[in-house]
């Protein structure tokens, strides 16, 4: 029962999050689709959370090795993802004041 109740909370969270995702992404400026790709890239590296929970606890060595590799992989994505996004966005300049720079 606990499992099922959990299960449905998770489904709800998933569905709602998807709604948000679709709503938000559809409104991302076309100018920024390349940075968007690298940003979502970094965010999806949230898998690091799971990785830490496998690498950290007192589990058999082989398990922890898998986890550690996963931490490394995710960490790489986090670092490179955010850095390159920032790098690309720095390049976008408008002649107007940033405030007005709205071109959906």
């Amino acid at each position, binding site marked *: 029962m606990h499992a099922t109740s959990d299960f449905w909370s998770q489904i709800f969270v998933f569905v709602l*999050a998807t709604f948000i995702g679709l709503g938000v992404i559809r409104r991302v400026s076309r100018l*920024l689709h390349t940075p*968007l790709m690298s940003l979502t890239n970094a965010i*999806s590296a949230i898998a690091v959370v799971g990785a*830490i929970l496998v690498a950290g*606890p007192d589990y058999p060595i082989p398990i922890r090795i898998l986890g550690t590799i996963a931490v490394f*992989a995710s*960490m790489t994505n986090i670092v490179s*993802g955010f850095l390159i996004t920032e790098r690309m966005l720095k390049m976008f300049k408008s002649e107007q004041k940033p405030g007005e720079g*709205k071109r959906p």
Partner: protein
Amino acid sequence: MSYNLVQLAYLIATALFVFALHWMNTPATARRGVYAGVVGMALAVAATWAEPEVVHHLWIVIAVVLGFAVGVPLSRVPLTAVPQRTALSHAFGGLAAGLVGTAKFYLWSGEGSAELTGFRTTAIIAEVLLGFLTFTGSLMAAGKLQEVKWIPQRPVTYPGQNITNMGLLVVAAALGVAIVLDPTAAWAPVAFAAVMALALLFGVLLIIPIGGADMPTVIAILTAYAGLAAVAMGFVLDNKLLITAGALDGSSGLILAIIMCKAMNRSFTNVLFGAFGQVQQASAGGEAREYKAETVEGASQVLEQANLVVIVPGYGMAVAQAQHKVRELYDQLKKRGVTVKFAIHPVAGRMPGHMNVLLAEADIPYTDLVEMDEINPDMPQADVALVVGANDVVNPAARSDKSSPIYGMPIIDADRARTVFAIKRSKNPGFAGIDNALYFSDKTWMLFGDAKNVIGELVKQMSGGSGMH
């Protein structure tokens, strides 16, 4: 209590991720979005790391340090390599998801534990399947984009290919079901290993038949897979942050893929199973009609006389790295009071937003980058349309010629401008591998050569000219 703190941190991180993506809706706030993302991620990592059960820190520290060591250089790649980088990091993401899933499975099945509820096991299988196929698939994609020699650029197809692939998938799924039904059986670990192997194999086979130029779309789809893998992991670990973040990425990948397919007027299935790239050979050498070449001198004069010049950049500008020269041209023309606009096609180049990033790199204000739908009405007023290494996105056949493979794809109406100058190196076709009637129209003049050189010449002409009077 600590549990509550962690959950709170996760909740805040979730909100921050949503804002991060929300703020990408305009360049003015986009950077704030990145910072929000960073903070959210830091919060999530810190909260998790602080969990009491995390007792071994050394390995994690090392992994993190290595992550920085590899990540920082990866973020310095030239902009033309961005698609590869994205593919590569999808590979990493898929790998991470796959490994965590594997670890969890062997951990729990080892304990022969009740943790492996039907739901959990299903989630693990999904996670591992998606994770590992994303891993190899993305590696293949990265290879094709990087044009690594031992990975065939051209789509590799053989009869019954799709059936084979589907077959593989079915087998993997069947094994998965078996495992779900009896996760602690003696044979389960073996079956699980088989599922992993099949997933890895499937990832490769999935990409092989797809042409190199279709990779951007594939990458978007792989983003969606990576996101779903994270969601599955969230289900396994009952972690709502993972579920939300994964869902956000999933929708992002989905929407980008849809936008690209729409803009190319193709369907998902066509991209995934159509082996489109073949067309490239098919009609590559269309019977060569008459090109009218123009000299740089002539072109520069016409440009100087113009009131409105619309520059249509394409993949060629990226290949030639011509954006900085384009910037100089833009300055020269502005100096002469010529209005210069850039017409940006949604799929110009090889990834969404490709042209925008390049031109932004060359410090061209994004307020002069006009989207297709906004610029097309003004094209008839344009005195000159300067096509810089664009081809398919200005091919009138998309409007008129029902037989054309790109028929129906929305294009930039360069052919409606008073005069057209087109810069390309040869008579070769573009990505779609078809001739472009625009080049043969009587208002079009070709400027053959590498975009960077040609535009460099133009600039020299003008600065020279302006020097005189």
